[in-house]
């Protein structure tokens, strides 16, 4: 998994809680590199899971809420770090529709070894259905990211979960106008 996810996770914990909690999370997770991540590197995703696990311990908050909050925060960071991906899109729906066909290809061009999740957005009448599938259990992070993109573009949309696709590896989100 891309290093930016790890470095931004630590960054988020430092900003949201404190550098001390971030340090505790890293130390308690007993990570091989002792928590040093560069955004251009690649690291096993289990290290991120270990850190979130420790954060649950430390904060007492549920893992889903933490993952969603991190996703939401990450969306604004990605917009700041990679503005070129957002050029030409004026709303969350068109941006999400472009993820599978355009953004993931661009990511793969920059990082040929990146294993990107499958994110497919389809228009269904007035709604947009966004399917997430990954070998990594980050469906809640994806939820947070979508939420963040909606706010980024200032859209008036609400996200519903398709109950039949509950689980950390796969989920289907229904975006409806309020």
């Amino acid at each position, binding site marked *: 998994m891309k290093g930016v996810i790890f*470095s931004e996770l630590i960054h988020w914990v430092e900003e949201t809680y404190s550098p001390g909690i971030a*340090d505790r999370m890293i130390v308690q997770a007993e990570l091989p590199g002792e928590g040093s991540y560069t955004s251009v590197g690649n690291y096993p995703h289990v290290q991120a899971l270990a850190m979130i696990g420790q954060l649950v311990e430390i904060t007492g908050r549920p893992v889903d809420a933490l993952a969603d909050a991190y996703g939401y925060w990450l969306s604004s960071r990605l917009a700041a770090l990679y503005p070129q991906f957002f050029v030409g899109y004026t709303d969350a729906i068109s941006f999400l529709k472009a993820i599978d066909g355009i953004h993931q290809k661009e990511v793969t061009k920059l990082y040929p070894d990146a294993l990107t999740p499958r994110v497919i957005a389809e228009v269904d009448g007035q709604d947009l259905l966004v399917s997430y599938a990954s070998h990594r259990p980050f469906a809640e992070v994806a939820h947070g990211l979508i939420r963040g993109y909606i706010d980024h573009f200032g859209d008036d949309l609400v996200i519903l979960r398709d109950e039949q696709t509950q689980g950390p590896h796969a989920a289907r989100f229904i975006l409806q106008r309020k």
Partner: protein
Amino acid sequence: MGMDAAAAMTAEELAAELALMRRRLARSESARTQAEALLEIKSRVLAQANEQLKANRELLRIELGQRTRQLLEAQRVAGFGTMIWDAEAFKGELSPYCQALLGLPGLAEIDGAVSASGSHPMLDRVVPEERQKVFEWSERLTSRALELKRSGVFSHHDGLSQICSTEACGSCANLTDCDRMLEFRIAGQSDGEANRMIRALAETSIDEDLGRALVFITVQDITREIEAANEADALRQRDQRRMRELEQLAVELRAAREVADRANAAKTRFLAMMSHDIRTPMNGVIGMLELFDDAGLSESQHEMLRLMRASGDQLRMLLDDIIDLEQAESGKLTLAAFPLEVGTFLGTSIGFWARAARHKGLTLELERAAFGYGRPMVEWIVADRYRLRQIIDNLVSNAVKYTRRGGILVRVGPVADDRFRFEVIDTGIGIPPERRAEIFVDFGQLHTADVQAGGSGLGLAICRRIVELMGGSIGVEVGPGGVGSCFWVELPFVEVDGPTAAKQKEEKRLRRFDGGRLRVLVAEDVETNRIVARGMLSKLGCDVELVTNGEEAVEAVRRGEFDVVLMDMSMPVLDGPEATRRIKAIPGAVSRTPIIALTAYSGRAELAPMMTAGAIGVVKKPIVLDELYRAIKSVCR
């Protein structure tokens, strides 16, 4: 952290804060080191990729060079040059072969501008009278390409936008078919060299990558092609002329042949008619000669009488042959089909020639042969006795005629279940191989030797016609041991049972011919013929009664019992066929009286009415004593 806060912190808290700061710093440094290491790796990868890119570009350059050379070579081999004309830059690129074709060596690029004096390197190569045409064509192509680009009606999947096909689109500035191609002459490239004919084909298109309006032109030297086409045209015209001449010749030949055929048919008919008309007086002459009592004549008178009789015979045979040939030529030669006993028939036929052979000191033998076929010859077959006899007589008489020493052997036997062969082998003079085919052809090539030997020269030709009509074949080979000739005939046959007991009984009734006197009725309207018939029949020991027409004949038969009736075909009051029919219709035994047709005709078609009416034999006029004897004997057998 502010100074006040720091002051408020305990020493432990400060130590912990410091440790935290150190760990964060350490992580940052470690992350930076990782990033630098990664950057190093990425730089190396990038440098390698750059090198690879350069190498690939070089490979592409080499390959492009090769492809270009191949393309140019292909142009040379195919005899095509190319020019790419940039309509906007008003400049063109000429392929090397295009330069060579147009006689512009080294001119890889050409400008469209014509000098103030009206000179242009390419136009100057065109013969003066066609320069304007070429100039206008190039102008049209240029403006079409520019129009095409302006219209924007092009979009092509391969990136090289091309104008739509001429038929399909009326809205874009496409080329008409006549604008696609131009043929013009250029001057020869050296003194004395003739002008060359060039064909140029053009296509306007837009290169979207370069945003250029282009005209692709191929040029080809078609001088040879034009020359070849002209030559072919000349040849075709010559052939057509010859064909017309040949057709005319064929028409003339056909006409000439028709005239010749008509003349030939007329000649044959005339001969046949003459033969018939000659027969009647001949009957008188020959018949009287036959009856002439030669007792008391001097030796020279004997000789004169013999020569007269021989001449008469020869004349009669000639007439027979001419009539047969006319029958064959006009397709009137038909065959009868009656049961025939092979052994007796052959014995009689061959035996007839025994005296002539003996007279010349020759042997004449009849032999049953196996010819490699396992079964013996059947006894009864269906055949045309008269025609079969004619063949045998011809072959055997020839053999006797042309043989001075030795003898003649006739061999007969089957060669298949339904086919038999007979051979007439002599020890005569033989026939040279080159004449073997010729002797079977008729009239056109009269066989001088045969004529000199006293025949019509038509005998073998007639035999061939008869054999072919019977579905058989005839030929000649050199005789055994290279001596003499072997004439052979192969004929199909159908085996039948022998005649019925009733017929045999009837025939038995007539056996008196040899034992006692036969009573013969002669119906004949010509007095000479009646006298001849009576004389000959008397000579054969018959009692003769004469009548002059068919009606009298019917009455005579009805009145008294006759053993045989000789019935002329053409008679006043009642003709032969009708009289025969009436006799056959009389109730009782007299209707079975054998009737022999007496006729000057020998053709089957002419004889058919008599045979259909019930006649069972034929005697031809002029009447020959031997034939009369044979005819009567055959019906009284």
